[in-house]
């Protein structure tokens, strides 16, 4: 496979089967080439080399994991138990985390997506709007919080 910055990686079907795209692309490519030679490259325009190097250990570690279950759309998603290995894996800065999310989304790594989404959600939970704005440096117009006009009187 060739990353967006022209770096070439060799992939192992067994290890990279987590990625649906990888699997699909490689299967199609193998069918097209009838299994002859492996000189041609599969382009990954949305993933740079650094991120691809970061993602590969994840694939290796989680290669035997079962597929994630489909949850109820109406309920709050999220996992309460993030494995320790995953927590250490995600100790990166915000920019890298966003890149990981985009790469996982492009490569369709469901398990990596859920973990990164959960990590990002944990960064937002429990924060006031000002704290969220400061934490992510959004620098957009702060929504002025207006207290709704109370039509009934609450008495202590």
């Amino acid at each position, binding site marked *: 496979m060739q990353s*967006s*910055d022209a770096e070439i990686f060799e992939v192992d079907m067994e290890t990279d089967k987590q990625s649906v795209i990888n699997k699909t692309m490689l299967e199609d490519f193998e069918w097209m080439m009838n299994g002859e030679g492996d000189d041609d490259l599969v382009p990954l325009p949305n993933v*740079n*080399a*650094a*991120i691809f190097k*970061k993602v590969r250990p994840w694939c290796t570690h989680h290669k035997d994991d079962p597929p994630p279950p489909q949850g109820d*759309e*109406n309920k*709050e*998603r*999220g*996992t*309460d*138990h*993030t494995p320790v290995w995953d*927590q250490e894996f*995600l*100790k*990166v*800065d*915000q*920019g*890298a*985390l*966003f*890149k990981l*999310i*985009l790469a996982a*989304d492009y490569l369709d790594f469901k398990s990596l997506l859920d973990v990164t*989404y*959960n*990590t*990002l*959600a*944990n*960064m*937002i*939970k*429990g*924060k*006031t*709007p000002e704290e*969220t*704005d400061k*934490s*992510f*440096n*959004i620098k*957009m*117009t*702060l*929504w002025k*919080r207006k207290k*709704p*006009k109370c*039509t009934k009187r*609450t*008495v*202590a």
Partner: protein
Amino acid sequence: MCKEAEHQLLCPLEQVPCLNSEYGCPLSMSRHKLAKHLQVCPASVVCCSMEWNRWPNVDSETTLHENIMKETPSEECLDTALALQDQKVLFRSLKMVELFPETREATEEEPTMNGETGVEEMGGAVGGVDISLVPHGLSATNGEMAELSQEEREVLAKTKEGMDLAKFGQWENIFSKEHAASALTNSSASCESKNKNGPEKKQISSGNNMVEGEGAPKKKEPQENQKQQDVHTAMETTGLAPWQDGVLERLKTAVDAKDYNMYLVHNGRMLIHFGQMPACTPKERDFVYGKLEAQEVKTVYTFKVPVSYCGKRARLGDAMLSCKPSEHKAVDTSDLGITVEDLPKSDLIKTTLQCALERELKGHVISESRSIDGLFMDFATQTYNFEPEQFSSGTVLADLTAATPGGLHVELHSECVTRRHNKSSSAFTFTCNKFFRRDEFPLHFKNVHTDIQSCLNGWFQHRCPLAYLGCTFVQNHFRPPGQKAKVIYSQELKTFAIKPEVAPELSEGRKNNHLLGHGGKSQNSLTSLPLEILQYIAGFLDSVSLAQLSQVSVLMRNICATLLQERGMVLLQWKKKRYSHGGTSWRVHREIWQFSSLFSKIKSWEFNEVTSMSEHLKSCPFNIVEHKTDPILLTSMCQPREQARESLVSTFRVRPRGRYVS
């Protein structure tokens, strides 16, 4: 075909709106899905009625409270945060003038009737436009509205702005009644001014003109003009005021019997007062009262309602007190040796809290009325000297304490007692009053009130045993399972929340990192992520976090809005509308979609990894260890052994035997 309508009422596959559609739910679904949907319907909203009591601070805990307030308030110190929030609510509800009526400002005007103009809509006459929208040229002069000219009426009739012709029929009906009534009442005033001014002058009441200024259609105007002309004609040639001589004779010829009787009904009292008509039975011709001599009725008020029985009765007071004149007597303070101005000032907060509780028990009055010989004498009881001597009617305790440094004047621990229990009347009661969707309410009650709030007194949260001496050390023993997170109380959110712990690396925002690669600067932002990803991430947040995220920016607000129907709730905002005829009604003003303050569901709690309290006690500054070196006598070693021990038997004297002989 004939059964089609019935089938539509019964078929489970028929698409029907939600049962709560009147309350804001926009969804429609097959009939057989209604029951399941109602469990998560956004319009099924409940209000939490949880109550808890809190006492004012006792002197023994003043040191602890002072030490707590000296430190920076921590969101993890749950009992302190909750107590401070309750104190804020309490101070905002205590009106000084209600507790101490003697401190009301003397020059203060009566509070206006329209105190809630913020939510009230003062409709114009019979629902028309407000007077402020009337063009400037028609502004009131000398208290009367100038009449619209025909050209101005036509211009207003052509403009559609501000007109609500759908209600025209209703207005016409109400207006015609108002017009007739106002014509009768204004007849006297117009007649007098007519006599002064001489030439004809049309004078129309302000209520009529406001409706006309609204742009009534042209076909209504000729009818109005005809009515006005009839009335004015009557006013010009006859006087129909009750105090004018010959009014009844003129009225008999001017109106029919029905209107004549109605005039007598409305103005009969004034007619009798001005001698225009005699009373039904003059006193000298009355069979019963004609022979009696009128005397003033004297009563003796010896029965006094016992005020100690119920505080509410003491608040209501004697119903006749306001009718009888009373005499004021103050307490003589000359024996104190100081002037009234030099008397020490009362502590504002302590006194206010004490009197607020006293009012529940026996009522705080500045004087007690005692009846002596049929006269009421007011004896002064207890008054208080405050720094600000007088308060306006709207002053609350929070206004007076805003400038002073914050303190904690209520106890840290609270008691949860339901309404069905006889709770102590010397405590302040606080209520939750938060709205939740029906399926969220059990989670809120369990996690917030049952698990956390009611367990703050030593189970969920543990204070140092030497807290009574002033130690502020506190530990939280429980945390949510799995993830590293802590329970906080957010003063901004006014509720408990779960705050996951975030790795320090993730807290670093913009940072040059090799993983970014080329063009990383523009993509190093939460807002750079695609909308689908942001929406999916928002699905991982709990309700309270969604409520806060929606206030960060317009983009985040739009992202969170996509989850409103699934995770949010809809409330109706009501507005009170007043009409010129005095009636009021409540109307739905708008629907408000919002997220509740529920945090992530917690089925079970795990123990937090904290050190034992004994480790803290080793280094607690209030743990003063005393090492005794001098020997101490035991109690059994205090008395010498030679002394005979006295027992119950030895206390009885020996009596001589035999019969008593004197």
